């Protein structure tokens, strides 16, 4: 896990001579991406691609997005310097990109608004979505309510039980939640059932995929809707400190918040970029979701990418304390950025993430999502490495962390983890099951 900045920069510079990394249009990112999908869905993917391509060049669509971002989501999100937290990161200056302050509490809103608008442009009246803990389900239900679309959310049966409050939230917003009982009954199976629904209802239904994965055009399209994160962050850091950061950190589930912030800095060779995967109990325990770190290339859910799989190519179940990172696949653009050495991907264990979670609460008065806590834990390591380098003093080094979401949903999990609950309390029971209030 030793940092190799020079190799990093050489690869990036070499690539830059060939052109920009920022707007890779798909379908392929190197040998990754593509459309590993049933023929029945190809026409819908073509329609989506065409609609998206037209929309993104249409000033009216861009104005609609800009208006919703500003007046509904509350963008631009702040860039907050975390001065007391910085002391624990080798003394470098740490800045937080505050996606936690968006409406619904995470970056997810950027993507759902964009895709729901596209659904309307295609004349579709119904959206379907998959969700693990419920974050993307809640965001989808929100966008559907706002734009008057029917919304059906697929969620693993076990997750429904553990996340009863998020199920209620989606239902309050008018969505129907369908518990998924097939396969391992987790997020990947929710995606499978959503795809089965889509094949049967594609005439009136858009599949609102929640991360920068899946078949073309999803990875490039989801990135597009999240690019605003990186663009804002770049402008904000230039305005606040007058220069680019030394490093940018984000957590990786499917990779949407990460690709959104990375986008702003991919073409700046001086900026080192880090993606932090869920290391669960530890990468040598088999119980983790460190897809790029330990997976092998394969095809799942429409794209070729790194994948957690056994020797037979069967998908392996992932494990993470963070439901949003608990996915055995990863977006294809990340696989590519890893292979060419532009972005470094490293695992963060549950314990490391929870320590960073507590630290941010106590030093900054911000309760982060456990997903985002993986990025915070990574930033601590990156900050310490930067501080140990002999160029300049720690105080002159700058790290930006994408704080992808707020941790209100994670309070019961955290309380259980830190043993804050009375053993007999109802919350304690819930916390044991991983409920996120």
């Amino acid at each position, binding site marked *: 896990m030793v940092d190799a900045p020079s190799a990093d920069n050489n690869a990036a510079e070499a690539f830059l001579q060939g052109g920009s990394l920022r707007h890779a249009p798909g379908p392929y990112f190197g040998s990754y991406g*593509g*459309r*590993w*999908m*049933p*023929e*029945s*869905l*190809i*026409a*819908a993917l*073509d329609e989506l691609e065409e609609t998206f391509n037209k929309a993104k060049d249409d000033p009216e669509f861009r104005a609609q997005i800009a208006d919703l971002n500003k007046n509904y989501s509350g963008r631009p999100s702040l860039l907050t310097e975390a001065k007391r937290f910085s002391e624990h990161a080798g003394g470098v200056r740490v800045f937080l990109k505050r996606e936690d302050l968006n409406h619904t509490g995470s970056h997810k809103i950027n993507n759902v608004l964009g895709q729901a608008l596209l659904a309307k442009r295609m004349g579709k009246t119904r959206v379907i979505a998959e969700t693990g803990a419920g974050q993307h389900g809640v965001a989808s239900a929100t966008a559907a309510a706002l734009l008057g679309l029917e919304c059906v959310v697929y969620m693993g049966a076990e997750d429904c039980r553990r996340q009863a409050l998020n199920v209620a939230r989606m239902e309050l917003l008018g969505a129907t939640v369908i518990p998924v009982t*097939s*396969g*391992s009954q987790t997020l*990947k*199976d929710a995606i*499978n059932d959503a*795809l*089965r629904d889509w*094949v*049967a*209802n*594609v*005439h009136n239904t858009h599949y609102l995929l929640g991360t920068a994965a899946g078949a073309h055009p999803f990875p490039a399209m989801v990135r597009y809707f999240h690019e605003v994160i990186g663009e804002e962050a770049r402008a904000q850091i230039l305005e606040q400190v007058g220069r680019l950061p030394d490093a940018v950190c984000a957590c990786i589930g499917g990779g949407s918040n990460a690709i959104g912030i990375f986008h702003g800095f991919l073409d700046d060779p001086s900026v080192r970029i880090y993606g932090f995967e869920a290391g669960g109990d530890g990468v040598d325990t088999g119980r983790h979701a460190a897809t790029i770190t330990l997976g*092998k*290339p*394969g*095809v*799942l*859910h429409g794209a070729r990418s790194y*994948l957690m*799989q056994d*020797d*037979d*190519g*069967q*998908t392996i179940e992932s494990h993470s304390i963070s439901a949003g990172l608990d996915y055995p696949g990863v977006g294809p653009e990340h696989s590519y950025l890893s292979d060419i050495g532009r972005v470094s991907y490293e695992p963060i264990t549950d314990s490391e993430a929870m320590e960073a979670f507590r630290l941010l609460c106590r030093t900054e008065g911000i309760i982060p999502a456990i997903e985002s806590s993986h990025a915070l834990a990574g930033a601590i390591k990156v900050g310490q490495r930067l501080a140990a380098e002999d160029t300049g003093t720690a105080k002159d080094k700058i790290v930006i962390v994408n704080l992808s979401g707020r941790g209100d949903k994670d309070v019961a999990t955290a309380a259980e983890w830190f043993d804050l609950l009375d053993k007999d309390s109802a919350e304690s029971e819930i916390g044991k099951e991983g409920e996120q209030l």
Partner: protein
Amino acid sequence: MASKAQMTSKSAAAIDRARAQGRAALIAYLPAGYPSVEESIAAGIAAARNGADLIEIGIPYSDPVMDGQVIQAATTEALANGFRVSQVFDVVAGITSQTDAAVLVMTYWNPVVRMGVDEFSRRLAEAGGAGLITPDLIPDEAAEWMEASDKYGLDRVFLVAPSSTAERMQRTVDASRGFVYAVSIMGVTGARSSVSTAAKDVVAAAHAAGAERVCVGLGVSNADQVREIAAYAEGVIVGTALVKTLGDGGVDAVAALTKDLSTGLSPEEA
């Protein structure tokens, strides 16, 4: 390539034998390793001896997005019982050594990628397999498979759907060898009470694009439906109904259902 392909296609030969008898071909789908490897071989042999011209052996996979609940349940059970992908070659060899049926393997793509497309193809050919049906591989992504299937003389059966545009239909028909798999409806596998009218249009479009052999699958479960499809397609594919029967009544029940389904293959019996 086309003429050489036709000479070596086991699936085409099996369909043509049926055609020479004035009827459509019957294709029976069964999952490998369900309920056990031995019984899946026995079920395949029983189907082939009771009217199935081609046998389609499915590889149980963790994420079968094109399958409905019956087949999902069967393949999940096979995996839970420890099924390994390489056992599919035992199943194929077990059936081809006992019958004249052409035996294809139906597989989601990742298990093939994992083994290596060339290695998988070589072993399938060695086992006497006819080729592959690939529900989540479209010709656009199939460069490696096109090469391996030519090298080992295997059929490549791609799917066409009611949603396929004329351009995609042409491309898929051109890329296929053996036959073209026409998906009868927009949906996943599972028995349905009636065959959608879309099926006939898909078959007509495939024929218009030059396909000589088009077989219809998804939702076919009884002899009446077989008869309806046999009137316009070269083959009829039955899956869910056979899998359910195998689970409920074992190998003998598969033999009986196949025999019954095969009564629908000849138009004169209508």
